[in-house]
């Protein structure tokens, strides 16, 4: 028999706050995390805006926890603290003997210019030069890409499955979805799942810029992230970490845990279309939403809210709209949906993006209020859904979807419902 899976702990660390309550309040208040930004103080770098975590505030807020940790990448710092917050919120800090695993979505490793320069000999990169200067090398760079997953497992005594997903912008949603499956199928009782990422360094931003993915526009100032708007021109990069604690319902009830909501379905798919672009009709996206609904045993008309991937890129937003209209075509249910793009407020957390957006979806479902899509001033005629522009809105939600789509054509959708003792109630 399948176990029901509930969410019992939340943790978000980003520019809008270091507690989920601050993050959520900022979303509902329509705040934006996007500010002027340049990598490593290069003044003429073409990307001019981002949503970086405030270093001083972060270091101050988490000084006690961070001081005991080994050197680690920036993203791992955010993720480790977010996981700590989620475990604390779930009342599981310091608990032992849990049959618990860890699933993390992480992206491209951080490579900082000064570190890469250590390897440069007279004739190019030289291993011996690098080795001779190894003491100067940022120790965080020498860890594997699963550093964060390992740190979380160690910090919380998780000795079950450890998964480090690298499915680009779908990574954290994949981590949550896989965790949901493992608990539902009885492999574990509890999972710490989410993601963390930081692309705000020269190497990665150059790579992304060469692909034309981030916006280089200066037309809209800090209103640059404009999902579904005619003036959208690319994503706005951000950084942060977000984690949730997922448990089997029995496990959560047995320990009297507070339950935020229930995960009822997960779907994943691939576009198999192009490396650099989504299918223009959102075929892969539609498939992941459809599979998630089937997995949840829900008809499309049970869904009231979709937290869209909504990147503010020209290609994604029309493709996602098309996909939503395909999946929710029956009786034109798509016209009744509230759809919002949290990235308009927090920017694009890349591999971690699915985690704060899943949390926003869950809280919207629990509290019956949907965060807005900011900066939607001139909707693209091809984007003709109700995107909840500008202001949060009260909506009664029976079930909601959270979409995350990754570069290379990797798609995920998660379905959540408010927790009720009677599943069908």
């Amino acid at each position, binding site marked *: 028999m399948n176990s029901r899976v509930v969410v019992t702990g939340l943790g978000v660390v980003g520019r809008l706050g270091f507690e989920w309550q601050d993050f959520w309040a900022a979303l509902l208040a329509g705040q934006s995390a996007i500010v002027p930004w340049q990598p490593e103080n290069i003044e003429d770098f073409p990307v001019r805006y981002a949503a970086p975590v405030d270093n001083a505030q972060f270091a101050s807020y988490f000084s006690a926890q961070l001081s005991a940790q080994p050197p680690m990448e920036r993203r791992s710092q955010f993720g480790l603290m977010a996981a700590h917050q989620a475990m604390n919120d779930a009342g599981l800090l310091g608990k032992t003997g849990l049959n618990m695993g860890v699933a993390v979505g992480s992206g491209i490793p951080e490579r900082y210019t000064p570190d890469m320069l250590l390897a440069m000999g007279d004739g190019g990169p030289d291993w011996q030069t690098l080795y001779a200067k190894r003491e100067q090398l940022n120790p965080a*760079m020498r860890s594997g890409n699963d550093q964060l997953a390992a740190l979380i497992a160690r910090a919380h005594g998780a000795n079950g499955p450890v998964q480090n997903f*690298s499915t680009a912008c779908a990574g954290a949603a994949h981590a949550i979805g896989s965790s949901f499956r493992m608990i539902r199928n009885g492999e574990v009782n509890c999972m710490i799942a989410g993601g963390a990422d930081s692309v705000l360094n020269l190497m990665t931003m150059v790579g992304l810029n060469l692909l034309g993915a981030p916006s280089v526009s200066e037309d809209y100032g800090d209103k640059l992230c404009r999902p579904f708007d005619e003036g959208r021109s690319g994503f706005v990069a951000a950084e942060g970490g977000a984690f949730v604690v997922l448990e089997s319902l029995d496990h959560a009830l047995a320990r009297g845990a507070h339950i935020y909501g229930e995960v009822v379905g997960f779907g994943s*798919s691939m576009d198999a279309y192009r490396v650099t672009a989504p299918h223009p009709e959102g075929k892969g996206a539609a498939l992941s939403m459809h599979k998630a609904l089937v997995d949840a045993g829900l008809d499309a008309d049970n869904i009231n809210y979709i937290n869209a991937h909504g990147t503010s890129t020209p290609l994604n937003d029309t493709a996602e709209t098309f996909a939503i209209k395909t999946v929710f075509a029956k009786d034109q249910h798509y016209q009744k949906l509230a759809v919002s793009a949290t990235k308009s407020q927090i920017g694009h957390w890349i591999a971690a993006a699915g985690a704060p957006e899943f949390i926003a979806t869950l809280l919207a479902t629990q509290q019956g209020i949907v965060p807005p899509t900011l900066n939607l001033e001139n909707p693209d005629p091809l984007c003709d859904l109700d995107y909840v522009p500008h202001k949060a809105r009260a909506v009664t939600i029976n079930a909601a979807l959270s979409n995350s789509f990754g570069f290379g054509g990797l798609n995920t959708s998660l379905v959540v419902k408010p927790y009720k003792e009677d599943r069908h109630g």
Partner: protein
Amino acid sequence: MANASTDIFITGTGCLLPGCNNPADLWQRLLEKKCATVPYTSEDITTQIISWFGHISPDQAATALAAVPFKLRRYATPASQWGIKATVDALTNAQLDLACIAPERIGLFTAQGDYSYPSLPSFTAGVGKAIEQNNLNLPALTNEFLNNRGMDAFLSIKGLSNNSLAIASLAFGTRGDCGAYVQNKSATIAALRSAVMSLRYGYSDVALVICTGTYNEALTLTELYQQNLLSPAKQGAASQRPFDQQADGSILGEGAIALILETRAHAQKRNVAGLAKIDGIGNKTAFLTVDQHNNYHHCAQKLLQKAGLELDSVDAIVATGAGGKKADQQEVVQLEQLLNGKDIPVTCASAITGNLPACPLDMLTALQMLQHQKIPAIANLTNPIGHQLHLVQKESLTQPVQRVLTLNRCYTGFNSAVVLSSPSYQ
């Protein structure tokens, strides 16, 4: 949805490993104890400290590149190219034409050891032109990167999305369930676990598991060398000496292994017997202290218990044999505790290829053992460190092999176990 007890079969394998273009090559080398590691070479990195490596040869690399559809080649990392080649062979081995299966029902799960991008070479061109008297001119560097293409234009594609998943989905037209894992050796288990779950609970009809990676990356080599994990390779190809008293460290390597997984029902429907049944997958993570090594045998015990198997039903064990003196001593102690005096032969394959990231060399070896009913001797093993263990030495054993326990441990603290058995074995 499928029944939770649905048996999962491996119906095809392929590989591209040092000195091995297919599993038969590996088996031949195992029987002959013929190591495939060679002097370390790199177009991008100069070093005299790293002297020996399990390389994919230029010929092998060319073959792999040819297996990748032309339009995808510029996006694919070498590791992805190896993975595509291994998968093409695995599909042939499984007699499986993917065109006969709905793309939405084909799952794809990829494992990668660690990122090789952004790599130092990807940084080279721009930096070389932007260094002025040992100081970096950052604006000049940025200009070089952005305007003169001084950096790989597809860096993000190669580094961001675990390249192999995106490339493989396009190469094979798969649109179903998916996952990509970048986590050293444990990536294999993560991918395998997800693939099995996807099949068992009806999310896929067929699952491709593609495992690929390289340790040939300067930052990784620096880290492992600094931890004193690498052999100085004074004995050349005989330097990786699993469980031998003369062992002095690991030889690293690279390569790819692909597995085709199906439910028993799906394989039978195609009249395919399959190569092996997956009896169970387990892992135990020991990120606590370096002294907590008992997770290795606890991992195996837990798995056997969960799968309802007695250790007596296991005919052979394929162990890790990293080649490090301390690591192998720890593994021997763990094996002795696990076996508790039972005479179950233990072998390993790491001496042939070197230690590989994210490649289930142990499973591939086990599949060959099930097929050939032999247990290969451990190459380069002359003076064993575990006298209570039945380490297979000198000559291969010919005996019934119906069930094999594969055990893996990674220096990161991750331990895993997989039990494979002959398809007809009950």
